């Protein structure tokens, strides 16, 4: 009985070897040369909306992916929750919206490996010296941004503003925003976010394909972010 089981498993190995893994729902096969259904959620700069058309870093990546697959892209706008549910029933093939790896949707959808890690840190006017820490310092931050809480955690005083770009002194924002606004980046990182895309759960061939596509896009993404307004 034991021997038969071993042979069975070995046979599985051989049969499967090259073709692994497969999609239970055949997503990759279906998308290739056909249509790519993408759920989009507005979240600058990852997904932007102009005249109903999606733009931004992730939309650009998806267009590249579709070209590679010789597929036509159909965009559907909605909230993240709806897209996750649609993914779990394989109603859409991909969802983007600046999703983070730590999102609570890991059970509903298949998240890719992170393709980019964005950082939010403390910036300072290039004329001044770089701060070593923000204990007791005032740091400008956009009103409603969670960074205010992280600033307070580190002992700083958050100064909530409408447009932190106009702040004089320390500012907390993402790396590319600091660059755009003309601030220098200090070493004080307040928050790291690992960016992922969401795919139907268990469609492992499709997930593998998208992960491989995203593998070396880090530099491209950095460049695209800097070109944002």
């Amino acid at each position, binding site marked *: 009985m*034991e021997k038969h*089981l*071993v042979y*069975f*498993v070995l046979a*599985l*190995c051989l*049969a*499967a070897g090259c*073709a*692994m*893994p*497969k*999609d*239970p*729902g055949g997503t990759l096969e279906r998308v290739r040369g056909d249509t790519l259904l993408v759920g989009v959620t507005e979240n600058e700069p990852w997904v932007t909306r102009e005249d109903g058309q999606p733009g931004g870093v992730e939309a650009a990546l998806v267009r590249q992916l579709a070209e590679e697959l010789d597929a036509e892209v159909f965009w559907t706008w909605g909230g993240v929750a709806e897209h996750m549910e649609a993914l779990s029933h394989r109603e859409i093939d991909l969802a983007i919206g600046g999703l983070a790896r730590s999102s609570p949707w*890991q059970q509903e959808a*298949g*998240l*890719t*490996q992170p393709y980019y890690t964005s950082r939010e840190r403390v910036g300072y006017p290039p004329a001044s010296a770089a701060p070593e820490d923000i204990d007791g310092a005032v740091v400008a931050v956009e009103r409603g941004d969670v960074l205010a809480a992280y600033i307070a955690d580190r002992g700083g005083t958050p100064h909530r503003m409408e447009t932190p770009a106009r702040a004089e002194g320390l500012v907390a924002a993402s790396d590319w925003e600091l660059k755009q606004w003309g601030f220098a980046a200090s070493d004080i990182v307040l928050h790291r976010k690992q960016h992922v895309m969401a*795919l*139907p*759960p*268990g*469609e*492992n061939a499709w*997930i*593998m394909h998208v*992960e*491989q596509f995203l*593998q070396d896009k880090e530099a491209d993404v950095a460049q695209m972010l800097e070109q944002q307004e």
Partner: protein
Amino acid sequence: MRRRPPYRFPDEQKKQLKKAVWLARATLFFMGTVVVVMYLAMGSSQAMKTAWIEDMLTLVPAAVFLISSRYWERPPNDQFPYGYLRIGTVAFVVAATALFLFGLYMFYDSVTKLLAKEHPTIGTVELWGESIWMGWIMIAALVYSFIPPVVLGQLKLPLARSMRDKTLYADALMNRDDWLTALSGIAGILGIGLGWWWADSVAAGIISIQVLIDGVKNLKDSVADLMNQRPTTVGERDRHPLPDRMRHELEKMDWVEAADVRLREEGHVVTGEAYIVPRPGTEVTEKIQEATQHLHDMDWMVYDVVIQVVPSLEDQSFSDHDTPT
């Protein structure tokens, strides 16, 4: 209160005990590494998670053995006049219960995942610049996970038989049967690779049933020991020949008219009472001393068998209200 004499393993068994302790330590170490490897590789696969829990449960019998082995030869004292021989068995009941409950939980977990039609996501991981499917990593982890237990189990079996240690024996069998866990896990992952989303949950279910069965079996055996079951041979449910042999040895003695025994196991040893009807006119006290020594010389596992002199071998009744049948 009168205490039992202290128990000492004979030299041969003492040597084997040392080896068994070393193997138990090795089990803790190697299974520790297996647990870490499995944790790093398991991802969102139900089969991997179940196998990982099963690997952690393997640590329990080894730990139980190490802890209880310190107590066996502790001399009986005022609080425990019968000594500490049963500590291993008691601990094993606890361990077997844990196995049973975990097996039940894992089975429930797998079945709910199967019914919910959850499709496990197994993506890629970047290693040395290459994108590798995590399934292969999981399979590699499963292969590593069954090598230490199978080897250790094989080494423990002969020791357990010769030491008459039933808990070590059960532990060794569980180790040796780990290959089935690994194989089920590998089949599950390969099934996922082939597009059968249910393969993962089914494999997890098979693994958890195994754990459940192990738990039930060990629970039955250790509870039977605590209930003073008649002595059995290690690994089988056969009646041990010792009680009959003992009775014959006693009946051979010239001062013995009739004899019988009532024996039970306490961990490694066999203990109990012998009932002798002496021939009239025997100097009973002296003869009992001789007979007791003779019984203990029969086998190293005989311990503290107490001889009772009785008027006849008929069943006794201790109650004033009963009339003997």
